[in-house]
């Protein structure tokens, strides 16, 4: 690990006025649970770290007339314990609890969870210069790829590791970004970008932009949601496949439904095709398998990760059925 300095800003303005062209020199840090690991492993070696935790007022969960606002520096543990989140947004509550370990949830933040870097073992190997690190090849595509992407990947086969992201996207969350230009609010689904757009990044953030807040619209009457995570071991494991489902049920059918998968694509993967097939129809296991099957027609498994297709079918069916 190389030495670095720590900057302790007092305001967001100080952060967004950092020179974007010197992006290799600094990194923003929230909980640090991922960033410090990257620095220790020498995946990145910034000259200084900008500790966002010294800025007051970025940690909160507030209800207002439009829904709920969550400060980016709210810890995952605080999110998991919040009674409003638990009753109105079960998918988010469950995702928070399914994430990492109690120690990591105490340190990790909501914003940091969304901005964490991929866990691809080639990316995390300091000896390997893959595309994501400016190299010319993806080692995973022909290497050991049991945990890699089967959907949406072409030049880089990472999967997005966040548990909160699929839940938040299914809940139609928006994200507010402080930027040198002007603060902007966009749909969280538009926040994440595929490697094909820019292989070095997983989202639209510029180095001197800060994910400041999340907003989730008011839960509709009768709205239900759930997050189902399939991981290999009991805890401290990233999703092999996860599904966040939100919908309003009427009789045996969904009036509307949102399905977002985790662990299968370089970004949280919205299953629009499956949603359209399920919406308005009587939900049966058969229908769900069929919907998953349609959505998986675009899946491109690698040598070791074909089993994720089967897991997607099961996890999706179980998550949807649990809302009936």
């Amino acid at each position, binding site marked *: 690990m190389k030495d670095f300095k720590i900057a302790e800003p007092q305001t967001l303005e100080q952060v967004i006025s950092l020179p974007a062209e010197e992006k290799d020199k600094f990194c923003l840090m929230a909980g640090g649970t991922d960033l410090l690991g990257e620095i220790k492993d020498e995946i990145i070696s910034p000259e200084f770290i900008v500790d966002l935790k010294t800025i007051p007022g970025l940690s909160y969960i507030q209800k207002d007339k439009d829904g709920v606002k969550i400060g980016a520096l709210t810890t995952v543990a605080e999110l998991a314990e919040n009674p409003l989140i638990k009753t109105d947004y079960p998918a988010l509550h469950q995702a928070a609890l399914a994430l990492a370990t109690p120690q990591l949830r105490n340190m990790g933040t909501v914003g940091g969870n969304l901005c964490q870097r991929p866990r691809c073992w080639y990316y995390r190997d300091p000896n390997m210069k893959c595309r994501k690190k400016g190299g010319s090849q993806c080692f995973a595509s022909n290497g050991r790829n049991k945990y890699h992407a089967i959907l949406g990947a072409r030049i880089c086969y990472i999967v997005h590791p966040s548990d909160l992201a699929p839940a938040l996207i299914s809940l139609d969350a928006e994200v507010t970004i402080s930027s040198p230009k002007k603060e902007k609010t966009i749909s969280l689904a538009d926040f994440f970008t595929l490697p094909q757009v820019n292989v070095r990044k997983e989202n639209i953030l510029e180095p001197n932009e800060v994910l400041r807040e999340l907003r989730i619209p008011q839960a509709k009457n009768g709205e239900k949601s759930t997050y189902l995570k*399939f991981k290999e071991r009991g805890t401290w494991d990233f999703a092999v496949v996860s599904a966040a489902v939100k919908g309003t049920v009427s009789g045996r059918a969904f009036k509307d439904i949102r399905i977002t998968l985790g662990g299968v694509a370089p970004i949280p993967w919205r299953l629009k095709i499956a949603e359209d097939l399920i919406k308005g129809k009587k939900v049966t296991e058969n229908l769900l398998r069929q919907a998953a099957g349609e959505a998986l027609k675009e899946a491109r498994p690698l040598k070791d990760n074909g089993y994720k297709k089967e897991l997607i079918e099961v996890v999706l069916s179980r998550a949807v059925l649990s809302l009936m």
Partner: protein
Amino acid sequence: MSKREYFKDTEDATLLYYEEFKDKETILQQATPEPEKEIFKIVGQYTPRIDGEKIVTGQAPYTHDISLKGMLFGKILRSPHACAEVVSVDLSEAESLPGVKAALPLKKGRVNYAGEPVAAIAATDEKIAEEALRLIKVDYKPLPFAVTVEKAMEEGAPQVLEDRPNVPPKPFNDYSRGDIEKGFKEADFIIERTYKTAVEIHHTAETHGSVARWEGDRLTVWDSTQAIFSVRDGLARWLRVPASRVKVIKKYMGGGFGSKLGINDYTVIAAMLAREARKPVKLILSREENSICVGNRPSSLQTIKGGVKKDGTLTALYLKNYTSGGVGGGDRCAEPIIDVYKCPNMKVEEYTVYTNTGASRPTRAPGHVQGTFALEGFMEELAAEINVDPLELRKKNYSTKNLGDTGIPYSSKGLDKCYQMGAEKIGWHRRNKKPGQGNGKVRRGLGMASQIWWGTGRPGTLADIKIHPDGSVEAICGTQDLGTGTRTYMAVITAETLGLKPEDITVKIGSTEYPWCGSSGGSTTTPSVAPAIREAALKAVEWLKQLAASEMKIAPDAVIIDKGKFINKDNPEQAISFQDALRRQRREMVFHGECGGRSSDYAYNTFGVHFAEVEVDTETGQIKVLKVVTAHDSGRIMNRLTAESQVIGGVTQGISTALFEERVVDETTGNVVNRNLRDYKIATSMDIPEIIPLFVDIIEPRMNIMGTKGLGEPPRIPISGAIANAVFNAIGVPIREIPMTPDKVLEALKRKEG
């Protein structure tokens, strides 16, 4: 309790089995001497660790905690190539970095795995040492490599070691008995199955490391080791100094599992750097280094062909194994198949496959873990084939002599009792009579697997008891506590013998300045140290009784010793304290004990059985272990609390390798890709079910005066097989490969449908 009572409330079939053997006067009566009456009060009870508080409050000094005045920090530069020619190593720039005090080139010629040491640095702090590593210029000429068994076995594959083929044509284990062809002819059923086990990494909680200090020509080394005397002798050899001038210290350790046996390169390097820099050097390896270059459990690819009669009698077993320990040797996996079951006709061929990966090291029950997984999986499939209860099949082929009943008798073998106790506790009758007979997406099943291991002690192990004039007592032995509770049972045995309490005893271990004891490997520590301590303590008692008798003016054999007092057996009113007995004593007294030898007329082994209950989600392929019951025959138990911990630890490790653990090597780059504890998955507390450890408590007087056998490795051996067999019982399709990850279970279920 009569034997009748002992076996009551069990299944008819099992009871019948016992009755049948009882009539024939075999098993217990023949193979085991009558258990002697329990004479101990503290030994065998639940005694908390005497150093437990120190350990959990962070006061116990581990090697990582050692900090000396002026100490430097050592780091090793390792090859990033799986195979390369080291053309040159230029240390000049690194040496000129301020703070660098020593630099050593370590390699010329060929490196054969990614992680092989190339150069080393000692500097005033870790960061400077790391920076210096980056400044070392190594000119590598990369060469083709083979990091997987498949690749290494291909025709024309790159040759891993310069002096031998990747698969030496002569098997390293070539064993046969009887007539294998005749055996197959006699069989009513013959099946052949192939089993595969992955490379497992030890991943001790405390990573490997040493601290070395020279004072003139005298060397002191603090080392995280299972073998202080081997380290001392190894250092003396490598550094060409007399062993008398080398001292090795190991007070506390965070795990070894075989990876810390013998002398290690990093220890020698630390001592060389310290000599060069004329300063103490601390060299602690990282988690990443622990993943690639301090050993591993070799993989195995075992094919078993076996023949059985309709009634379950084994007629022939044939094992062929390809095992790979990287640039080190493979594991001898055949011992369980050779020994456990009565089988007159046998053939074994085992071959090593060399690959360009780090060298193997003994890993908690080397070979037996892999061999038992295959053998017990095979027995389970055989039982299904002939439609008998898998436990009955094992009993049917029960042996009382080693080499599958063709050798010498076991000194004691309580495996039948283990079967009985374990089956009863898990509720063996609840298993699916036909594998996979249940319905539903989530299926339950029960499985079992038997265990054999050695676990005898080392004759010649020395221990001292020192009695001070003030009555205080020391128990001293140059052994090392791997975390198993050695200190505590030394105190327990001493206290038991001298009529004191364990906390009264000062235990001294972990230094080569103490009486000699061998490595802590092979489950030998307890059966080596316990009898030596007992013998020394018995001598001390003799002397103490004489002293007390003369104070009390009675005959020495009228003195009994209890609760810190000497009591007149004929007049219990007359009693004096330890201090009173010693009041004329002006100097300390030392009594020497030694672990004695044993008759060669018997085979000495430990036995056991594990039963597992699992739940398998047939849609996701996920296995959940619900309950584990173990029953072990390890002779007399010294401390039931730490013995149970030992079993729980072994089972936990076994669950972890059955379900998760696998070193993953990338064929393109030759690197291990999961060099951390996130990607190399070890079971968490959430994956560990209720574990019920039982002991049969058969005292083993032929082996040593404490009647005890080892317990370090036995609980690690059968668990993966028991889980695999429970999975087979649940879903009706065997998983012949560990780890049994969901992708493999789904694959197997598809095979079943197909």
